[in-house]
């Protein structure tokens, strides 16, 4: 019996102690008419050997071409130590650290995680994770509504440069709360949210979302936007790529002294770039940081340092009164299980990279992206659309339909990028191309020459 240790004798003597004749008897409180029919669509049990073979074949089917897709999920090198440590049984098979004394490993690690995330974003505090980047933005919106007590409008200003799927998730999750999401268009030249297009009249705004970098990979004018929001009584929700934070101004420092308040109020985002493999989309982890004054509105687990009976330092879940298991229908969120193991990986990843390793990874990704863009711009029929600087993604306009070009690139062993034409038809044949530190000079050349060929080929096909 897979995973069941009972011998026949065990079973019998246990039934004797219970005073039951058979295991079947133990189900006698279930009305007979409800008893289930056999599970016909569950296959018969297989040995580990058989399952192993099947699933390895499946995985082998999915070996991937060279990947230049980003759009919210980024391929970075992950040190081997990260997952060798993360999958140690004591991390992997522990529960949420409710019983603090028996969970100091997880708790101290999460305290370290919180410290690192707060440092990376230059914010006061961090929670211990949310589900993913998209849902963390939804939680940030809900949190902003709770936190901005002065604002009654529940109006959230949302640039169109926020990841389109994130927007969908925000809608799904916040739609029952009377919240208005007001879309702000982007600057067609810069690819950013132009400060001049923000409402000039005063008004009750609950929060402004600022993506950095934005979905186009473009860097937003964060200081001006932050100042604008604070001047209008709106909270600033930063949604950032944590890897980029090693290189560019973190949200805790957004804005200028003149505005009186500096820094974003809430920062969230997708933690995947920090040591989590692409994995077909998950598990990743969402993170959330905020200014100290908002900490009681934060959703999710928070770990605090404390002392034990002997005065020795230790760690424990704290501010639990925000959470569903205490506050129930009045909790800040319904979240319970979060993405603990992924924060374990991220913490180990950041420890192994250190500030310099992380900075170089970010800088290298940026430089590779610049190099490739330059090479691609030299190709006939390819041009960079936006003028503003970016991090490690660029939007290119092609003189051919993106879908066909991508398919031609696939034939050359390349996943060429993310096709923007459906979601941003106004940009024409627009392709979002990401390059990280994982790509070599040869990879970039291979991309460039393949794109050149692909464009010619589609041309040939079209004219044929």
């Amino acid at each position, binding site marked *: 019996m897979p*995973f069941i240790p009972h011998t026949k004798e065990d079973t019998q003597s246990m039934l004797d102690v219970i005073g039951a004749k058979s295991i079947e008897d133990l189900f006698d409180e279930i009305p007979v008419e409800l008893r289930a029919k056999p599970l016909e669509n569950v296959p018969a049990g297989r040995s580990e050997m058989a399952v192993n073979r099947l*699933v390895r074949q499946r995985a082998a089917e999915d070996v991937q071409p060279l990947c230049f897709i980003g759009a919210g999920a980024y391929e970075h090198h992950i040190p081997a130590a990260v997952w060798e440590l993360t999958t140690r049984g004591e991390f992997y098979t522990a529960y949420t650290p409710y019983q603090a004394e028996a969970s100091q490993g997880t708790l101290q690690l999460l305290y370290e995680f919180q*410290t690192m995330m707060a440092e990376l974003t230059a914010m006061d505090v961090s929670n211990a994770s949310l589900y993913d980047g998209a849902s963390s933005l939804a939680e940030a919106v809900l949190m902003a509504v709770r936190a901005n007590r002065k604002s009654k409008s529940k109006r959230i200003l949302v640039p169109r440069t926020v990841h389109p799927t994130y927007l969908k998730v925000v809608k*799904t999750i916040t739609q029952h709360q009377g919240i208005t999401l007001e879309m702000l268009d982007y600057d067609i030249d810069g690819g950013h949210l132009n400060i001049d297009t923000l409402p000039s009249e005063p008004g009750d705004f609950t929060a402004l979302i600022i993506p950095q970098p934005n979905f186009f990979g473009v860097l937003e004018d964060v200081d001006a936007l932050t100042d604008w929001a604070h001047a209008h009584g709106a909270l600033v929700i930063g949604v950032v790529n944590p890897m980029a934070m090693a290189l560019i101004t973190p949200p805790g420092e957004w804005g200028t002294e003149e505005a009186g308040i500096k820094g974003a109020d809430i920062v969230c985002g997708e933690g995947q770039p920090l040591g989590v493999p692409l994995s077909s989309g998950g598990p990743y982890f969402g993170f959330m940081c905020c200014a100290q004054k908002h900490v009681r509105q934060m959703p999710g687990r928070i770990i605090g340092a404390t002392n034990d009976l002997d005065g020795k330092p230790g760690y424990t879940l704290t501010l639990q009164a925000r959470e569903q298991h205490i506050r129930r229908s009045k909790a800040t969120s*319904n979240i319970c299980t979060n993405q603990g193991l992924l924060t374990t990986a991220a913490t180990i990843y950041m420890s192994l*990279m250190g500030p310099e390793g992380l900075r170089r990874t970010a800088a290298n990704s940026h430089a590779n992206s*610049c190099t490739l863009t330059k090479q691609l711009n030299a190709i006939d029929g390819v041009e960079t659309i936006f003028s503003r600087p970016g991090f490690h993604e660029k939007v290119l306009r092609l003189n051919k339909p993106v879908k066909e070009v991508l398919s031609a690139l696939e034939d050359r062993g390349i996943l060429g990028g993310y096709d923007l034409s459906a979601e941003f038809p106004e940009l024409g044949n627009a392709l979002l191309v990401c390059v990280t530190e994982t790509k070599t000079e040869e990879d970039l050349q291979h991309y460039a020459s393949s794109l050149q060929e692909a464009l010619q080929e589609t041309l040939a096909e079209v004219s044929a």
Partner: protein
Amino acid sequence: MSPEFTSGIKSNQLIFEHSATGRTNGAQMVEDVASASEIPEGLLRKTPPMLPEVSEMDAVRHYTRLSQKNFSIDTQFYPLGSCTMKHNPRACNTLALLPGFLGRHPLAPERFGQGVMACLWELQEILKDVTGMTAVSLSPMAGAQGEFAGVAMIRAYHDANNTSGNKSERSEIICPDAAHGTNPATATMCGYKVREIPTNTDGDIDVEALKEVVGPQTAGIMLTNPSTLGVFDRRIKEIAQIVHDAGGLLYYDGANLNAILGKVKPGDMGFDVIHMNLHKTFSTPHGGGGPGAGPVGVSERLKPFMPIPVVGKDVVGKDEGSFRWLTETDLPQSIGRLSAHMGNTGVLIRAYVYALLLGREGMVRTADYATLNANYLMARLAQAGFDMALPSRRATHEFILTLKRQAKDQGVTAMDFATRLLDYGFHAPTTYFPLIVPECLLIEPTETESKETLDAFADVMKTIQEEADANPELLKDAPYTLPVRRLDDVKAARELNLKYSPAKD
């Protein structure tokens, strides 16, 4: 005589305390290319983040030793009720970490993802059968998100079928007082008012009370059966009838299916929607707090509202047999997306592998032995003189013991018992949940524990009771043998210290 076990590094140190400015882990350094930047000065970070500067060995040593400070299923019996801490078979982990799965970009074309999609599609089929539902979406990332999806579907359904034009007509969700906290919290997130109904002394729902609160304002009820009290509600069919008659829908909190796998299907009980915690019943690891996966199953009438994406299989045409994502186009009435991609795919693969290993017989066996273990341990503890919250009932996958008497007579609490258990090498059961049972321990042994372990646990409980009889203070100060003694939660909340700051010198 017994110096602090230091490991050559002080055992309480944080990773930051191993850090030294300029120390690097050289193998992780890619080329330094500062020059190539097109980022204007004003957008560049001025001071580097205070991340640890350590060698690979420092990190390996630190995190290896940290891990050893945890209790885990791999090292201890962990009878945390409602949490289903059962063995996590290693094949699930090994196979989910195959490079083919890990390396796949979520937005890569479907033709480069047929392997993983085949696994997910088959998992959908398995979960449909197990729950007795018509369709399954795998996208919710944990139980609570599954609940959200479920209640949002109930809402979407009412909205779609509401002819009066008054969309907020059905404004209430009913929850039993014993419900898990995520249930009422979810109802609130979906914009509902929560109506609580009481539980009878026999552990079943107070049907009379239910009849009183149910009405045209009822959107639905959130139940779990077996309930969080560890008993199977015998009048479930009647309850379903009452709610359905009032036009409400039934939500099944399927966090713990261990005791009913292949025994009774939520669909057959009359439920319209269910979420499952794959990180419980389907044995994906808890990882110290996630990730989980909370797929939702729905009856025919809720199918149009399922969260996307769902894996579809082409049954005709040139792509016959191939898999693709069903999206907004296929399910225009969907409640929408809950995550940037397909939820926690890696968790889903683990659950799939587990389901294949168990097979249909293994599912039923899980219910058999989870139930046997719970009833046995309950009997052993009752024999040892402990009070059961519901002594006349069968246990399901779990049961509740109350220490009300001990609290009154000896001043020892459920928490005292719990922490003292740690000294004996057992993780504590769930304490103080469900909220309606005073000084309770909710105990879920799971099917993967042996009789020997259950016997040892029962013996230790008895020993602790004897300690409490002889010297209650002993329990109050427990634990003694763990990396830390009893921690001060009040201090943690009052003097908030949520991140490390280097001592100034």
